[in-house]
């Protein structure tokens, strides 16, 4: 466009006008260039669409997810608009897709659209579980599974709870309280689990002869916070009781503990109790009672003395007398005796399901010696030992009412939130290599729109500049 001079402006004003004209030309050129590039891009996309009509649309999930991460729903809409159909989807996963996107991929697959995926996730395998502890003190156990030496942080709705580094495929922490859901974050993945309602803790019923084992077992459980009732067989037809013990029933007792032969008259009732869901701990001399029959998770051998001075070591249980247990095939081994750790066929504590209940069998007897004759801290350790045995067996249904008196809801976790990568594998099958021919749908559409917007803005600025300086 020729420059028209109406009058003779000062030399400074003339220089400004010349500069402004140059800027207007640059804006015009930029606008034309952007339009040209957009036209070429669209034509290439159209050619690509016709060339690979059946190629999968690639949905990419980046390694650093953000709030504006692409939604699969947007991709599906774009594909339907631009290509008329969604023929296949390939997930390029650099991080674990969100709950919504996993659900959409599953829906697409259910609708008959082939869905494949390529696993490019680094450190994405993480699963979390939140369990209410069966312990009078309450609390929760947060357990995470992730590759070894992975730093994992736990958060709830109030913020960071704790952080751990995994070993042997997992880690766990025990916390007193959690608020809402617990999220375990490991590198690029986050697993979420809702805390269950607290467990309902009921009384413990102990059968024992008067003696140190019974006395200190009861003391340990009571000092730990359990409400204990005891039936001591102390003479011919003489029973000394603590509390008001009645026949074992799940409405009254979380667990029954049998320490010796004083339990013999009560074994039929205990069997019914276990079958109906109750927890039973059979320990010490009671493990030799054949009357328990199929309730026992294993068969005990001859009693072996403890190692002299063993109570003073890092593994004080080796200082106690015990009867090695050969577990039945359906029993689970809870603990071994470190003296015979190499003998995999024998155990010190085993458990099995019996009816709807659980039975834990402990090989040790005279455990009270640990409390009285052990090193510093053995009183606490003795309490924790007995409490853990009872917890392993105890019947403790979830509370139906929370502390505020309101009914506690059921789990609200979306499917797969507790183990999102495993959920992807379950939903989409095994990872496959990236297909040779794909359609990069959502990226090209964004690029074209950006170019068009740039052209419009440049033309608008050029027009406004001309009009403001009086040119047509």
């Amino acid at each position: 466009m020729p420059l028209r001079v109406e009058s003779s402006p000062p030399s400074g004003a003339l220089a400004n006008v010349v500069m402004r004209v140059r800027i207007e030309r640059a804006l015009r050129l930029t606008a034309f260039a952007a339009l040209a590039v957009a036209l070429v891009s669209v034509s290439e996309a159209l050619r690509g669409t016709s060339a690979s009509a059946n190629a999968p649309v690639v949905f990419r999930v980046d390694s650093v997810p953000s709030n504006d991460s692409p939604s699969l729903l947007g991709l599906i809409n774009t594909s339907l608009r631009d290509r008329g159909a969604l023929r296949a989807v390939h997930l390029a996963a650099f991080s674990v897709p969100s709950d919504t996107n996993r659900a959409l991929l599953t829906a697409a697959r259910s609708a008959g659209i082939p869905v494949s995926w390529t696993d490019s996730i680094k450190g994405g395998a993480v699963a979390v579980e939140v369990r209410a502890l069966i312990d009078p003190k309450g609390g929760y156990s947060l357990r995470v599974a992730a590759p070894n030496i992975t730093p994992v942080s736990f958060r709830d709705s109030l913020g960071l709870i704790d952080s751990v580094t995994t070993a042997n495929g997992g880690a766990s922490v025990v916390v007193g309280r959690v608020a809402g859901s617990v999220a375990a974050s490991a590198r690029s993945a986050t697993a979420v689990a809702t805390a269950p309602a607290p467990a309902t803790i009921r009384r413990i019923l102990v059968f024992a002869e008067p003696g140190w084992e019974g006395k200190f077992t009861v003391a340990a459980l009571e000092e730990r916070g359990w409400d204990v009732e005891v039936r001591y067989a102390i003479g011919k037809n003489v029973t000394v009781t603590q509390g008001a013990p009645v026949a074992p029933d799940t409405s009254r007792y979380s667990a029954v503990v049998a320490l010796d032969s004083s339990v013999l008259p009560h074994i039929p009732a205990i069997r019914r109790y276990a079958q109906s869901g109750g927890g039973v701990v059979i320990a010490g001399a009671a493990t030799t009672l054949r009357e328990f029959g199929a309730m026992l998770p294993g068969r005990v051998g001859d009693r072996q003395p403890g190692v002299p001075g063993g109570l003073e070591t890092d593994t004080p249980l080796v200082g106690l007398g015990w009867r090695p247990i050969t577990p039945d095939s359906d029993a689970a081994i809870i603990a071994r005796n470190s003296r015979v750790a190499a003998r995999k066929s024998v155990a010190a504590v085993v458990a099995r399901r019996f009816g709807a209940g659980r039975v834990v069998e402990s090989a040790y007897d005279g455990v009270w010696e640990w409390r009285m004759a052990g090193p510093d801290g053995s009183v606490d350790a003795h309490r924790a030992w007995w409490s853990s045995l009872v917890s392993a067996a105890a019947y403790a249904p979830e509370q139906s009412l929370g502390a505020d008196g309101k009914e506690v809801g059921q789990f609200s976790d979306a499917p797969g939130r507790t183990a999102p990568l495993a959920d992807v594998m379950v939903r989409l099958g095994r990872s496959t290599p990236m297909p040779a021919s794909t359609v990069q749908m959502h990226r090209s559409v964004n690029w074209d729109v950006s170019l068009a917007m740039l052209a419009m803005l440049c033309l608008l600025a050029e027009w406004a500049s001309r009009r403001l300086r009086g040119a047509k």
Partner: protein
Amino acid sequence: MNGFGPTALPAASFVFATAQYESGDWDSAPLVPANVIDAIARYTTISVAPQGIIVPLASEEVFRSPLLYLTGHLPVRFTPKESEVMLEYVKRGGLLFIDDHNHDIDGPFHRSIVEEIRRIFGALVQLPNTHELFRSFFKFENGPPATSHELNGWGDNLVHEHLMAILRNGRIGVLYSNKDYSSEWSYHPENKKFLSVDNTKFAVNIVVYALTR
């Protein structure tokens, strides 16, 4: 043999243990253990060792006997090690039964042992006569049974109505009597047949309480 080595006894057995301390006369009532053991065997099915043992109060052996009997006539002054062991013993759940063999509120044993207990554990409290100790096996509606020495006006010429105690976690850790049960129970068990009422029944309550609470 169990984890305690050659001196250990089967864990299921109750073994009556007498505490041996350095000062005073710890062995002033040698017939009491046999008489208490006889009563336990006579009235209960508790597996009881036929003979008592003597346990040095400053030794770790103490922790293998959760009920200890301690008596004497003379002034008592526990060594630092004895004091340390006694405190730890009670903290862990042991029961120390101390009886004043003088039955004299101004006697040297009473005055010194009460001071020693206060120094090690804190002040003794009066045990109410409704305490479960008095019904742990036999029922003693009026609290601790009076001894013949009290009734005969010997010693301080008083009938002591209550026992004293140090309580830990709601349980008796130290039971103190200045009723002189050590004299009351100090005779050969064979001679029980001459008594119209067995005066060792309260010993059964103490043992049953120690084994069950």
